[in-house]
């Protein structure tokens, strides 16, 4: 187990190195010049050249990457080109909000999605099943922006139950988390239903029923733990989707997360911020996947860690 963990951590470090290299390379070949963004509209060629030299952007690719990596190993993520401040401090200031929203959002997805999925599987083929599966298609196809704004409009503006955007209290968290929960629940609902239907047919469930266990007990003790396995893998994946797609929800609800930071940085080629956010979210994804692989055997002991 320990050996496995060490090997996986080593592999994770390699993955992060790979991500940093590819991202850096892409930003290097990107046809947009960060110096132009820094120097402003009236800059002379001399201004441009001097800024380029100061930032080391006149160096060959491997020198630039090497310098970045070396600083990173010493815990320095560099300074933002446009905000002229430490990238690490910008990310740390926003990371808690993003993580909070991620946890709450995935929690909401799980609660809504798994409930829908289990209910649909248990009443397979009935109206409630069809209705729920229909709903899952609608939620998956709904544009984030519209759902977010609609919830905001109804529950915050019209009914006044929640604040209109912002950050700080649990009340602020409800609508953004609910938006993400609704949008992502379709995946979990359909996965859970499908997995549950499979498991309910499996021999061991039939055996358990034959042994005279009650339906409720069989479902809770035998069917659910088995059915939930693919869903666990899904959480690891979901972290990746979250990190990429949280921008819209953040900006509608005025949520101060790293999504907005990254979006503005991409628009204006602020390379140190793009690199920083990419690496931090890559870390989250790698950790999420590692946890998913570690948790799977706990739920289904037949999977052995190798």
């Amino acid at each position: 187990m320990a050996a496995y963990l060490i090997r996986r951590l080593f592999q994770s470090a390699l993955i992060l190195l790979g991500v940093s290299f590819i991202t850096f390379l892409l930003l290097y070949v990107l046809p947009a010049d960060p110096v132009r963004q820094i120097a402003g509209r009236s800059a002379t060629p001399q201004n441009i050249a001097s800024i380029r030299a100061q930032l080391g952007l006149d160096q060959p690719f491997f020198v630039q990457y090497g310098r970045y990596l070396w600083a990173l190993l010493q815990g320095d993520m560099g300074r933002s080109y446009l905000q002229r401040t430490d990238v690490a401090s910008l990310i740390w200031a926003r990371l808690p909000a993003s993580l909070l929203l991620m946890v709450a959002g995935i929690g909401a997805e799980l609660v809504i999605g798994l409930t829908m999925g289990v209910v649909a599987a248990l009443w397979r083929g009935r109206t409630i099943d069809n209705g729920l599966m229909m709903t899952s298609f609608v939620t998956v196809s709904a544009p984030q922006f519209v759902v977010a704004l609609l919830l905001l409009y109804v529950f915050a503006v019209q009914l006044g139950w929640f604040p209109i955007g912002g950050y700080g209290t649990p009340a602020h968290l409800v609508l953004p988390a609910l938006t993400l929960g609704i949008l992502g629940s379709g995946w979990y609902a359909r996965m859970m239903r499908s997995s549950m239907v499979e498991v309910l047919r499996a021999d061991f469930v039939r055996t358990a029923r034959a042994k005279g266990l009650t339906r409720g007990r069989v479902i809770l003790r035998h069917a659910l733990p088995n059915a939930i396995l693919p869903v666990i893998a899904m959480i690891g994946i979901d972290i990746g989707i979250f990190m990429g797609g949280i921008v819209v929800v953040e900006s509608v609800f005025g949520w101060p997360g790293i999504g907005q930071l990254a979006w503005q940085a991409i628009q204006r080629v602020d390379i140190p911020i793009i690199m920083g956010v990419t690496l931090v979210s890559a870390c989250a994804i790698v950790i999420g996947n590692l946890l998913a692989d570690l948790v799977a055997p706990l739920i289904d002991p037949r999977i052995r860690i190798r």
Partner: protein
Amino acid sequence: MKKLLASTALIASLSLPAMAQETLDPNATPGGNITVTYKDDVATLDPAIGYDWQNWSMIKSLFDGLMDYEPGTTTLRPGLAESYEVSEDGLTFTFALRPGVVFHNGREMTAEDVKYSLDRVTLPETASPGAGFFAAIAGYDAMASGEATTLEGVTVVDPLTVQITLSRPDATFLHVMALNFASVVPQEAVEEAAGDFGRMPVGTGAFKLADWTVGQSLLFEKNADYWRAGLPYLDTVTFEVGQEPIVALLRLQNGEVDVPGDGIPPAKFQEVMADPEQAARVVEGGQLQTGYITLNVTAAPFDQVEVRQAVNMAINKDRIVQLINGRAVPANQPLPPSMPGYTADYDGYAYDVEAAKALLAEAGLADGFETELYVMNTDPNPRIAQAIQQDLAAIGVTASIQSLAQANVIEAGGAGTAPMIWSGGMAWIADFPDPSNFFGPILGCAGAEEGGWNWSKFCNAEIDAAATAADSMIDPATPERLAMWSDVYMKVMEEAPWVPVFNEQRYTMKSARMGGDDALYVDPVSIPVNYDYVYVTE
């Protein structure tokens, strides 16, 4: 031998009493807090660096420069300088500083601070996007090349007098001294901040930064020792960042926000205007901005003037204005109508499809041609590009649209690989109200170099010389100079490197409790709002 310069605008400003006596609004009630929202985060509050929509007016309220503008207008007035003298040759400016002005840290501002601030903004290490504005100051080139660490042309005569010598006459120099980039900052505070002055700004302005929660909000607090007696009216201003304009408007309608900094989003415009109560709170104002299409004159087919003129005639500007809910006026020349030097009696190229086709035929392109139109990807720009595309199709020109992120469009424009660019979202908004500001970087030879902002790559030596001559005149407001500039832009229009499409009108909204002249909410200089002069009525 120095002489007081006599021009109408300047006399008006110098006739003010020596003490900072403000003509206060008799209806104004001091106190209160307002909430202002912006979509984009505030990158920095360092006056040498900030050059964004949202931080421009914030910096104006935190800092002061030697020169300033009458609120809500484009009329120059002295700021931290109490008065100034200009030598006859227009090369030496002597500023007498206002005594007793203190920074937010309690120290008195002196001539040394002015010199330090100008050195700082022109130093290459600062990498200021505004450094180029100071190119006329003697010793600038040595600074830019790193040979000097202090501007030779700026001298401290005594603690309250600073003298600035120019290497060439620059009619716009006083406007430059009113830019945010010329704000006076205290050296010790900059050094204490150790590179993070943009997060811990210290100035002489009407407000000081009380709190900044990164990514969420900023709180500005009234500077009780502000040198303009009686100002500001407000106790505090809260800025909330990271909010969609459409949500900001919902919050305004709900009474939570006083001013939506990004204005009224297009999707809500008709709803607001249809309600008389809300429409009454909408403020409209002109803006020193022009939206244009650049035509790359260095590559076929836009190297032929007939083709460029034909495109000018093919664009239905009225329909484009209709698409953006009438929030603009059609343009026929680079300068916006409220800019001095605007040619009022010029008709421009009228919308005439047949004439455009005839011109194309004359250029040997009767069957049209294929080209590309670059556009920034935020609404309404791709829509406008599609309208342009349809207009071009009517004269047989097939333009495919490249809708890209801002940085990519700017790159393509600078590299000269984009045949046509619709400027929306990146369009030129004047830095100061002078006709020269629309020429150098965007229509002159200096900007036509690789990477420059002159995306047409238009470079006409004769027109450039005329522009230089106009800028060498000492007084910016003389009719001769304005006539020269008018002439420059008329010659540009003959060559037609641009299609001027419209001049955007700014529409913003305020809560019912906001007081103060409407002009303050569409201030042409303190964009978007002049926080120093607005107040709340409850």
